[in-house]
């Protein structure tokens, strides 16, 4: 990776934004975000990621991107996982352990059905919009 000029920075930003937009419009990829701050990890987020990866391999789904992120603010229901899947509203799951993570793969990502009892709606509307 080389040093950027202003032009290159702007190009990169546009490209990355488009990539994100495409993901949504082409309706192909699912994005799974796992809250992995210190407390998330302490609450077991690493097991959740392992379980997600393992289960995805089992069901043979390669269209899913798993990403780590920081605190989602829902510290009382950690570990937290947000799933953005085409055709289903973005969903935040709380109190996710390995077993729930597997359910998320089979039920939410494969079957398009939310996993009852673990849905936590985001209390804050994000004001910084693209």
């Amino acid at each position, binding site marked *: *990776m*080389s*040093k*950027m*000029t*202003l032009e290159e*920075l*702007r190009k*990169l*930003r546009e490209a*990355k*934004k488009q*990539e*994100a937009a495409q993901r949504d419009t082409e309706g192909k990829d699912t994005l799974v*975000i796992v*809250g992995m*701050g*210190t*407390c998330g*990890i302490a609450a077991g987020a690493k097991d959740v990621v392992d379980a997600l990866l393992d289960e995805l391999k089992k069901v043979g789904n390669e269209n899913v991107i798993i*990403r*780590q*992120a*920081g*605190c*989602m*603010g*829902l*510290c*009382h*229901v950690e570990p*937290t996982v*947000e799933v953005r899947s085409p*055709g*289903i*509203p973005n969903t935040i799951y*709380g109190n996710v352990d390995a077993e729930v993570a597997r359910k998320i793969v089979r039920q939410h990502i494969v079957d*398009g*059905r*939310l996993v*009852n*009892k*673990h*849905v*936590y*709606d985001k*209390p*804050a*509307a*994000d*004001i*910084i919009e*693209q």
Partner: protein
Amino acid sequence: MAVKNYVLVCGGSACESAKGNDIYKSLLHQAEVQGVSNDLQIVKTGCFGFCEKGPIVKVLPDEAFYVEVKPDDAEEIISENIVKGRMVDRLLYKEEGKKDFKPENIKFYQKQERIVLRNCGLIDPESIDEYIARDGYMGLEKALFELTPEQILDELNKSGLRGRGGAGFPTGLKWSFTQRIESDQKYVVCNADEGDPGAYMDRATLEGDPHSVIEAMTIAGKCVGADKGAIYIRAEYPLAIKRLEIAMDQARERGLLGDNILGTDFSFDLEIRLGAGAFVCGEETALLASIEGKRGMPIPKPPFPAAKGLFGKPTVINNVETYANIPVIISKGGDWFAQFGTEKSKGTKVFALTGKIKNSGLIEVPMGITLREIVFDIGGGIPGGKKFKAVQTGGPSGGVLTEDFLDTPIDFDSLISVGSMMGSGGMIVMDEDDCMVDVAKFYLDFCVEESCGKCAPCRIGTKKLYEILDKISKGKGDIEDLQKMKDMGQAMKKASLCGLGQTAPNPVLSVLNAFEDEVLEHIHNGKCRAGKCKDLVQYSIDESKCIGCTVCARKCPVNCITGDRKVAHVIDQSRCVKCGACYDSCKFGAVLVS
């Protein structure tokens, strides 16, 4: 099969107790009856945080937000919204008469504003590209190519941003001092020490969005004319340190940090300095001394770091959260930022909401929000049906706020006017089971441990205050102690060298102020109503309630509870260590505290 509609029914405990479960069942039933079971999924969710208007039902993807729903409403929700695709107007939440039902437009959701935490929980903190995709480094772009240092200061001044590290000093003004001084070398420092008990917002910000702080510090370098900076962070935050290091490397590779940033003639680089985790090292002069390799002890101000800071050179020093605001202020403008918050406290504040609260977590709210909104709307209230008692804000520098202050707007000045402080943002909620003498003792104990000992008022004062509180908690206090503590507190405020000693008496003074009767009860009646002061409580078993389940006897660590199965149990007072395990374990309320 694709599910077309989702009906989310709040399954939080407040809504649950308001017939949430019946609503859920009626919806299932109606979906069946009306033959749409296959077109929708009915889901019980966690608390929406809007319990005040519960029970809540939300229909997706329409985003219909129904409040105060009754089981009988299920029929209409299914027949109208699901079958015919029309929202049920009478159930929609309307803000002040407006027919706004989009969650973004509901004031409750606007109770949280994410400026500092804009990327936390959304982007991969280890990917600079994701940060850039969310308009990252746009503030820096502007600072390098469009604005002069004066114009950067203008934007900051317009924004009204005040330091989030505790004292609330205007950031633009602070930068302007450093900017105006001629010097061969200037520095930019980030205070990521975060020593307040119960606070973790700086850690979360660095873990979730390290680039925002790096970008801000680079902007500061450009503005004041510094080419070097340091992030002082405690060694107990290994994940934050690791992510910062990754972020700094990525920024250097991309040419956003280091020599000739974005091809300009401006150069700026950062290094990380680890702190050993002493509270006083969060004080700015002590922090700078610590970076210089000296013992972290405060020195008298003035001179302020802005003029004479790191290695005697002009230094901008700000808190993590303060910095995290800056990229957006520069890219969107000071006026944009100034629309949030109150007249004198602009923007938002991140709080770590902990203690006796249902939805503990990291929240970001606009300044001016009330404590009531935070505790009851966002926090969901007190768990276990207990009564709210107080909120401790500002850590060891702050105080407790009682029910009387629930409607006080939260901003720098009004918190001070009611005897507490914004501090860095720890917010600890207490219920009736918390003893205020015990709480004051906890903070004093912390200050005794953390005082650097350089000046007598703090070194001796904290210890003395602690001893008096300890005496009171043992039922051996006397009435003169109250005045003694007040006098000593006032003296410490005036005579201590740094903020630690100056504010250490605050928790005690505010407890004396707001809970004098409770303190007096300890002194006069030898009674601790919350049952927290061990020497004053006695556990006993109510014969008439005890069914002899033996749970308490099994939980007791010193085996001082005896009794046969199905026969009332007895506690041997001489051996009881007052751990309270029996009280917590008894399901029949048979263990009494007095």
